[in-house]
């Protein structure tokens, strides 16, 4: 996380917000494109303080959330757990990349294994290596998590509205998942 830090003052790491802005721009743009093309977005966070907030955000966007205990084979063993033709999420958004024991969330590694892109808010105690679009930022305070939730919700809603608009104007067909 050192490249993303501006410095350290009184034992408190200060994140470089100029870099945050750039990363946030890239991440939101990517999310918007995924939502525009009708992809499944899964919000993940293992912080109990913000679990309800994250689930409500997902519900308002019309996307999916997972703020509970992560069962081991969720992504890697999905056909067995859910059914043969289940569709996996196309994007994972981590509002906090750590789990309750301050280790890296299993979902990051599993998404990398299943070739699913990830967007994640990485704090100064997190490892940003496996995340496709890291956003260096604070994941501890309610104010900052609410900000991120609002931003993602706004992005996804705008993308979906744009899609609907384009469908009406140009007669585009509804987004269908291509079988890989």
């Amino acid at each position, binding site marked *: 996380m050192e490249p993303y830090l501006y410095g350290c003052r009184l034992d408190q790491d200060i994140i470089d917000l100029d870099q945050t802005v750039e990363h946030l721009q890239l991440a939101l743009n990517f999310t918007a494109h995924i939502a525009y093309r*009708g992809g499944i977005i899964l919000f993940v966070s293992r912080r109990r303080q913000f679990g*309800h907030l994250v689930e409500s955000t997902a519900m308002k966007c019309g996307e*999916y959330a997972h703020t509970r205990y992560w069962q081991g084979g*969720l992504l890697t063993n999905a056909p067995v757990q859910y*059914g043969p033709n*289940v*569709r996996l999420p196309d994007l994972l958004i981590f509002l906090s990349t750590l789990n309750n024991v301050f280790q890296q969330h299993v979902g990051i590694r599993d998404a990398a294994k299943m070739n699913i892109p990830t967007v994640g808010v990485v704090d100064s105690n997190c490892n940003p290596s496996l995340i496709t679009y890291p956003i260096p930022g604070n994941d501890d305070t309610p104010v900052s998590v609410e900000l991120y939730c609002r931003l993602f919700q706004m992005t996804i809603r705008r993308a979906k509205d744009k899609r609907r608009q384009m469908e009406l104007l140009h007669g585009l067909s509804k987004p269908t*998942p291509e079988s890989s």
Partner: protein
Amino acid sequence: MAAYCGRTLGAFQRKYACSIFSMATAQLCPQGRQICVSSALHRKNETNSEPRKFSAEFIEKQVGEFDIGKRHLANMMGEDPENFTQEDIDRCIAYLFPSGLFEKKAKPIMKHPDEIFPKQRAVQWGADGRPFHFLFYTGKESYYSLMHELYGKILNLEKYQDRLKAKGLFSKDAKQISLRATRWLTKEEVETVLLEGISTQDYTRFIQLLEQLISMPYHSVEEKFILQYRQQLEAQSSKQTVPQLEKDDRGVDFSRAEGRRKSSVASVILRDCGSGHITVNGHDYLQYFSVLQDREQLMFPLQFTGMLGRFDLECTVSGGGRSGQAGALRLAISRCLLSFLSEGEVENLRQAGLLTSDPRVKERKKPGQEGARKKFTWKKR
């Protein structure tokens, strides 16, 4: 009509539309001679492929065939097709296809397709693959959505209470919902409500959150939601059968009841407006039961309800020894008394144990031992 065998049959194979009996197909061997091969050889290894999917139309077709077959069977056996129950079907199939096999699952059966084909969960995503429920990827969507809803209610209540405090309208003694004579739903009942299994920790957490909701002063706002998860407790005494109160020739109330204890059978007639006379098998109870303990057993129900000198007892008892007879009489007297008592007193009697029949009987002697428990002398060598 199709009578299904317990094991998988050719009828379900979509590739080979065979009947239930295996069909022999003719094949040409290299020399040009015909060789008959049974369809069992054509069947590929089923354990390797994924478990068979039965579509909704297929199941519906099977249900239709089953209903028609049921009517045919009823007509065949000369019975009424309208009121033909599953037991009648089983009886008729056992008659038409007698089987000497011991394994129940190997015998021919004809049951409703819902019982034969394994239940499959309804597909939980639409045509484009997107799941319907927003918590689908957690695995336990009903349970977690319930927890989400409950936590949302707690947060809303806190905000409401804060608003009231800000306006100065907050009062600690707000309306409380009455929870007496109710209990929380058990884990099994919650599982039936949610239609999915939950673990003990999940259930404990759920009850903890509900208790937290109830502990808030203004929880009566969510009364309807809370009462959904409370179960009424029935008073056990409501299940007690009270003997009928009859009137004899002189207009005096009396009731009859029976009781058993340890191979003694007793029958008692309790007459009102008496003076405490007790007759057992025609003799006075002082003569019949010379031991004080047995007479105390007889008097205990009357003494407990405080009606010692009010009733006349006419008892008959047979079988067993003196203690067993006394116990049987006590049970019979308590049962008779029920028709003269109010609900609360019946509950008191039940709590005292006077209405429970004692299930203890003599334990049998086992081979290799002296008695029921006593062993032969143990010798070290």
